[in-house]
């Protein structure tokens, strides 16, 4: 394989979508659950991101982090620090973070107006 020419071979253009200033909401139940997860320590942040993959092409990624090396926008929502990576901001504008209290399939859920479809487990969307 001629890899010495990789530098001169054409790079596949990966179109980076425009960064959107994200607005998001957190449901009362999700606030309650986040409150018990964070406790009184609000130095940590909720990272709301998107990974490629999953049944529908994109997967939500929720993490509690102190900081991240991702290029993020920081929001203050109901007293919580929320970090949204700029690379996935176009997929996350307008979402509601909800919490579903169920024995099976329960937990944090994202209601996303940008999603045209979601997979059964709710973790993946297109």
């Amino acid at each position, binding site marked *: *394989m*001629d*890899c010495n*020419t*990789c530098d001169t*071979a*054409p*790079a*596949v*253009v*990966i*179109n980076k979508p425009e960064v959107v200033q994200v607005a998001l909401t957190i449901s009362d139940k999700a606030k309650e659950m986040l409150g018990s997860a964070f406790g009184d320590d609000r130095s940590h942040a909720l990272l709301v*991101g*998107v*990974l*490629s*993959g*999953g*049944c*529908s*092409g*994109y*997967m939500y990624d929720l993490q509690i982090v102190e900081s991240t090396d*991702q290029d993020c926008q920081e929001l203050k929502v109901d007293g919580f620090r929320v970090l949204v*990576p700029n*690379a*996935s901001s176009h997929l996350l504008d307008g979402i509601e973070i909800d919490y579903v209290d169920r024995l099976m399939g329960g937990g944090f859920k994202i209601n996303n107006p940008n999603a045209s*479809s979601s*997979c*059964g487990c709710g*973790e*993946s969307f*297109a």
Partner: protein
Amino acid sequence: MGIYKLDSYVLIIRGKDRLSFIDGLSTNKVEGNCSTVFTTTAAKIIDLVDVIDMGDFIAIVGHQPYKDNLIQHISKRVLNQDISIVDISSNNSVYLSTEDIVVGDKITKRNTWRGYLLVAPNSEVIESNMSEDEFSEYRVENMIPHQGHEITPSVHPLACGLGDLVHEAKGCYIGQEILARMRSRGRQGKELVKQTNPVEGATTKGKTHSLAIVRKKIE
């Protein structure tokens, strides 16, 4: 039998997320050298690719006419991952050898389910000594589906003989729910068969036998 020149593209993917990125979007477990299939949400084929692990990067080799759709499919899913993609198709040619042959250092050789895949820089001359008819005969004899014949955007991998490339236990990928349901319910609809000529609707015609995708008989 010989060596056949494929109509292929070669993309180089670099970055620490290169394997997990391809793994998350295709049917097989991608941990190194393998073949895997990219599918739509309806589980229809975008392309079958051979993944060649070159150590600090991977190459994916697919069917040239399907390149644009594949690039469109994967490039919009590069979000935060450490991924860069370079197209080296114009600098290299791709061959399939039915036998294990000795090649020079500049030629990359991988043993795949279809035969030995050879990726050669344009400076290295490899003589293609199989005609298209001979390649078809080889494929019919060994029931090897090929892009543009059996492997097309209108079928899913289970229908065209690529079931071995659909991993049963890996996590989610695009099209997985449909393929898993087909398998678990035994309803894959169609299947690849080799039949004695004449074969109605043959996808690849051989001298005495042909390949065709037919509705699977319910047992």
